[in-house]
């Protein structure tokens, strides 16, 4: 067997995994702390509906994935803010409606399109050079904005109303955060797929949440774990010829349960004060 690292498609896959893992785990910290997990799930499926429509009408898949993703986060964000509808209800409706659209668009297609299913289940080993470039640009944009607004995003996650009251433009920044969540999901569609991107958004950050009691610590742990599980997942998938998405997600899930079992937070609670 040739050394896999000399294969350029393998290098691309590894790079794509590191990008996706790092990106999802950075934004995942805010998703977990601000309680946006369900929005992530809904957005991933909406983005997939965008991909199917793009294939149906012959547009670049990413363009409609972004459009559908952004529409979903903005509308659900507005609904949450207005408090007109419980978030789990509105997301639940979006989730099923966009899935129905995706199935409808697929049904309208004349032929079976294997490439399209890559966006549902992830197909990191087929990532092209252009896709990698696109992912890198989006990743730089998202991480850059997160770093730029990190103190505000943390404040919003801690207590949005308090942030607003302290003179932080919390509302606008909340929508920026939602936008970044949507972009992150779209970037990750190709790598881990619409079904599993949600897990990559949640798991490294939730694992980090178990391990630390500081904001900096949580970001550090989350990013490290996110990159680690994604790259190791690709290696395992290649070595044992198993699908990449599940390999990454199951690895991350295993680490999550380990962290829960050995969480210092739990230890602190059990120990006498």
């Amino acid at each position, binding site marked *: 067997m040739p050394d896999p690292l000399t294969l350029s498609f393998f290098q691309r896959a590894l790079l794509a995994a590191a990008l996706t893992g790092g990106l999802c785990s950075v934004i995942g910290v805010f998703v977990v*702390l601000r309680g946006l997990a369900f929005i992530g799930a809904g957005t991933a499926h909406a983005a997939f509906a965008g991909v199917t429509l793009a294939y149906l009408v012959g547009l670049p898949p990413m363009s409609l994935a972004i459009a559908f993703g952004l529409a979903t986060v903005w509308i659900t964000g507005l609904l949450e803010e207005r408090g007109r509808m419980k978030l789990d209800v509105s997301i639940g409706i979006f989730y099923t409606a966009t899935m129905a659209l995706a199935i409808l668009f697929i049904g309208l297609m004349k032929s079976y399109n294997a490439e399209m299913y890559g966006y549902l289940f992830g197909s990191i080993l087929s990532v092209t050079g252009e896709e990698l470039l696109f992912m890198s640009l989006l990743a730089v944009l998202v991480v850059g904005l997160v770093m*730029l*607004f990190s*103190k*505000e995003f*943390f*404040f919003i996650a*801690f*207590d949005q*109303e*308090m*942030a*607003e*009251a*302290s*003179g*932080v*433009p919390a*509302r*606008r920044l909340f929508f920026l955060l939602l936008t970044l969540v949507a972009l992150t999901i779209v970037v990750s569609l190709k790598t881990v797929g619409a079904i599993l991107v949600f897990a990559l958004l949640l798991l490294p950050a939730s694992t980090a*949440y178990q391990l*630390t*009691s*500081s*904001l*900096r*610590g*949580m970001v550090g742990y989350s990013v490290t774990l996110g990159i680690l599980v994604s790259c190791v997942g690709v290696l395992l998938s290649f070595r044992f010829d198993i699908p990449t998405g599940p390999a990454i997600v199951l690895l991350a899930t295993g680490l999550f349960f380990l962290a829960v079992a050995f969480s210092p*937070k739990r230890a*602190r609670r059990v120990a006498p*004060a």
Partner: protein
Amino acid sequence: MEHIHPHHGDHYHGKPLIRFDHFTFRYLHGPALEDITLEIADGEFIGVIGPNGSGKTTLLRAILGLIPPSQGSLKIFDCACQELQCYHRARIGYLPQKDTVDPDFPITVEETVMMGRAGAIGLFRWPGKADREIVRHALEDVGMAEFCARPLGALSGGQQQRVLIARALAQHPQILLLDEPTTGIDAPTQHNILDLIQHLHRDLHLTVILVSHDIHMIAPLADRLALLKTRLYAIGPAKEVLRKEILAQVYGPEAVTTDAGHVLITDHHH
């Protein structure tokens, strides 16, 4: 209890800082605050009392600029403050009700207090040496300096309240809004928190607006009490507001006639 009585005579009350003028705020189902007219002067200590759901927290949220008037107006520092980023907002420190803070949130004491600087630092900038100095000072003011690296969730309820008060102080506020600051805290700690609030009011010359359902606790501290139940039923010194006939309008006649607390409060004032 004499020593904690407010010194009405020697306490300097400056110009009005907060002016409610026929302020009404409606939710979809009806008014939460109705026709409130109230002036609060610089340096005053106002206690807001009233039954559950009487609009006490809504009153604080109005002062914070989080809810716009449905009718009437509210001016703070002579500004209507409708602007999202009105700089006055940073001059109002706020201690929300305790259950709004997630004790498991991964954050250190120092990181918590630094959030109080976010408005003043502004966008696109990071906390500097001066901000860290202000945070240290705020923690010293509440007696929590040695806890700065500890996780917020590892502290007791009273210590968490002190840290959140420090966060409000880190804004360098002129007005301090406190929503039920002693609820859910054991009695000795309650006393410490109240002493701290009084110290901040006197020594930092903060205008304090304290919301509480506990009339006994608040009456000896406040210069004036505001009795609220959607409308403002009474405003004035405790001995004028805490009358049976006034309280009965808000709490119902039975609640007041059988209310030992009312008698107790009048005892304090005789």
